[in-house]
């Protein structure tokens, strides 16, 4: 019975094949149609990440923890930078939490199309699923790191507050930004492999242009308007507010993040759709 149901689709799909066009609206419907593929590709990336490693998931915990320790020692102890009265380790960890999601998504997505070039030259599916799945796979790391963060807070005598409720919308905004930038980079990387080499520098510069390992209060007032264009500023300060309760709720920076994030996502998607039409011939 089910067999029959499946075969007789109520609406006959009509596929039109035409020469490459210029710009087109975002085809989110097609993406939705392939949501199972998106999910399975994401699971693949998660599973593959730590295959044949002895420590497995422990790496997910160790990586941000060790990074935070190093930053805490260098910036908190040696450079003696202020941290709004919070232990420097917690301060940095709260900043690295969103930052690692962003940077991880960029790094994973950047090369994703090229490592799946066989797929691209042999089957059809919305190409966007590949970089999006790579970015989404980083969410697992993020979730584990978040648990570690909460554990660190409780261990240090911090109380969990209602502020935490802003985290889900913050994560969604962060994903919007990450996927937007990832779409740009992954698509351009197919044409110009230079991006593979430039990306680590871009990520590093971007990190120091964001209040990840230092407090945003250190930024001179004159520079602040330019600094605020960086959509990650609002997100990171939002995370610190939610987790540590430091400062005021960064409403204005978050509004900027939302606007710029949306613009990045739409623009990234449009550029991707424009150039993906030639992927199979170029990759």
């Amino acid at each position, binding site marked *: 019975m*089910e*067999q029959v149901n*499946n*075969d007789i*689709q109520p609406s*006959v*799909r*009509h*596929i*039109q*094949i*035409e*020469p*490459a066009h210029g710009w087109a609206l975002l085809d989110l419907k097609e993406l939705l149609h392939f949501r*199972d*593929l998106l*999910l*399975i*590709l994401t699971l*693949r990336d998660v*599973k*593959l990440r730590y*295959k*044949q490693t002895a420590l497995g998931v422990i790496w997910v915990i160790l990586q941000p923890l060790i990074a935070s320790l190093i930053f805490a020692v260098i910036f908190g102890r040696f450079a003696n930078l202020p941290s709004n009265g919070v232990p420097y380790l917690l301060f940095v960890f709260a900043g690295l939490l969103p930052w690692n999601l962003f940077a991880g998504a960029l790094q994973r997505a950047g090369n994703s199309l090229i490592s799946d070039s*066989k*797929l*691209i*030259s*042999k*089957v*059809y*599916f919305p190409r966007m699923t590949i970089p999006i799945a790579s970015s989404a796979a980083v969410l697992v790391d993020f979730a584990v790191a978040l648990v570690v963060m909460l554990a660190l807070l409780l261990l240090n005598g911090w109380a969990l507050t209602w502020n935490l409720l802003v985290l889900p919308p913050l994560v969604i905004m962060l994903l919007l930004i990450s996927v937007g930038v990832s779409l740009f980079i992954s698509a351009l990387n197919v*044409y*110009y*492999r*230079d991006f593979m080499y430039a990306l680590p520098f871009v990520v590093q510069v971007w990190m120091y242009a964001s209040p990840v390992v230092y407090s945003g209060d250190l930024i001179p007032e004159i520079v602040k308007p330019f600094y605020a264009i960086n959509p990650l500023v609002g997100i990171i300060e939002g995370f610190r507010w939610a987790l540590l309760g430091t400062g005021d709720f960064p409403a204005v920076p978050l509004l900027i993040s939302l606007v710029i994030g949306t613009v990045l996502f739409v623009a990234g998607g449009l550029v991707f759709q424009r150039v993906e*039409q*030639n992927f*199979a*011939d*170029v990759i």
Partner: protein
Amino acid sequence: MSDIAIRVENLGKSYQIAHSGGRSGYKTLQEDILRWLKHPFSKIDTPAIRETFWALRDVSFEVKHGEVLGIIGHNGAGKSTLLKILSRITKPTTGRADIYGRIGSLLEVGTGFHPELTGRENIFLNGAVLGMTRRDIQKHFDEIVAFAEVEQFLDTPVKRYSSGMYMRLAFAVAAHLEPEVLVVDEVLAVGDADFQKKCLGKMSEVAKDGRTVLFVSHNMGAMQQLCNTGILLNRGKIQFTGDMKATITEYLKAAADLTQGNTLRERIDRKGEGRLKFTGVSIVDEKGTALEHILSGQNVYFRLYYEAEYELRNASVFASFNVASPEGILLTNLNSKVTGDTNLPIYHSGYFECHWPRFNLRSGTYTCNLFCSINDVIEDWLQSAFQIYVDDGNFYDTSSLPDRSQGDVLVNHSWQSIGLSASEDTKTATISPSQLSELS
């Protein structure tokens, strides 16, 4: 709703071939920026010196629902390009195509398989890549596993699979794709004979099921068995369309035209690096006299003339040609590896000579592909490079041959009879006709 499943109108695909000798495709930003600095008003993408090559041009045809269409043609005729456009992998340059129904395409067995993942995980991954939903896959999961015969290895990473198991699993997933329009490219060329038979069986099942199938293969036997109608592509254009049998006949005729005068040098539909290129073939007898027709039973020498960019000694040379019957069925392959003669020197210009003693094929026209690889790098590969015209000869020295309908191959053989029961004298073994009648 009309009964048309696929409509293709004036479809064309052109590629830009870079002339600078460098690899086309990958660019570096530097090249483009420099070019842009020199010519700031030209489009960034405008290439320096490039030539347009039409892989497919002005192709139009229609396929009805339930029709099984075979597409044949030589390497480089545009078959794969056509399938890639219809599968939406690449965009056409001109024209359009309309497909009515869910389309599934299988251009390669095992696309999307990941070696580190288990068989189970790969079934889901591969299925999703081919366009199945998770529910579809779950529904067919047991069938897929049974078809592939990999029950015990479901939770083993496929990198530990034997290549046979790998192929079986990959085909099994694809075979359970249930699209209304199925596009298949040369997937039956893999695996052992048993497996091929199984695949072919599955394919004809799909075809009988009333699904629309587009099928590309060099296996003319399979094509004739599976397809109702055929399209013959030649250098990107449709040369012939008709029922499958007529299309195959036309294809073989076209193959003969290509080989006339042995102008292999001019052929562009070849694959390989091209540092060694075949230029012609001649068939000679023991005295070195060129033969137009071979008589079965003759001692013949195949001379495969080539030109090479450099001379080589002590390289591993794999020179080969295969022989397909007048019906297009592959009969055999002759190559320097199986005879242990891979240590062939390469000259700037010369020929490989292959001795075929007591030629054992029946009358007819046989078509051969030529192939040469050096140190495992394919240098030259030509489909339908030359043909062998054979007349029945005195193969057995008895002026007798089996009926022509009994096959294309003659086998050198002899007969005797051995008794198994040990008898003391020959009396029991030789019974005279009179004794025989007494017995009955």
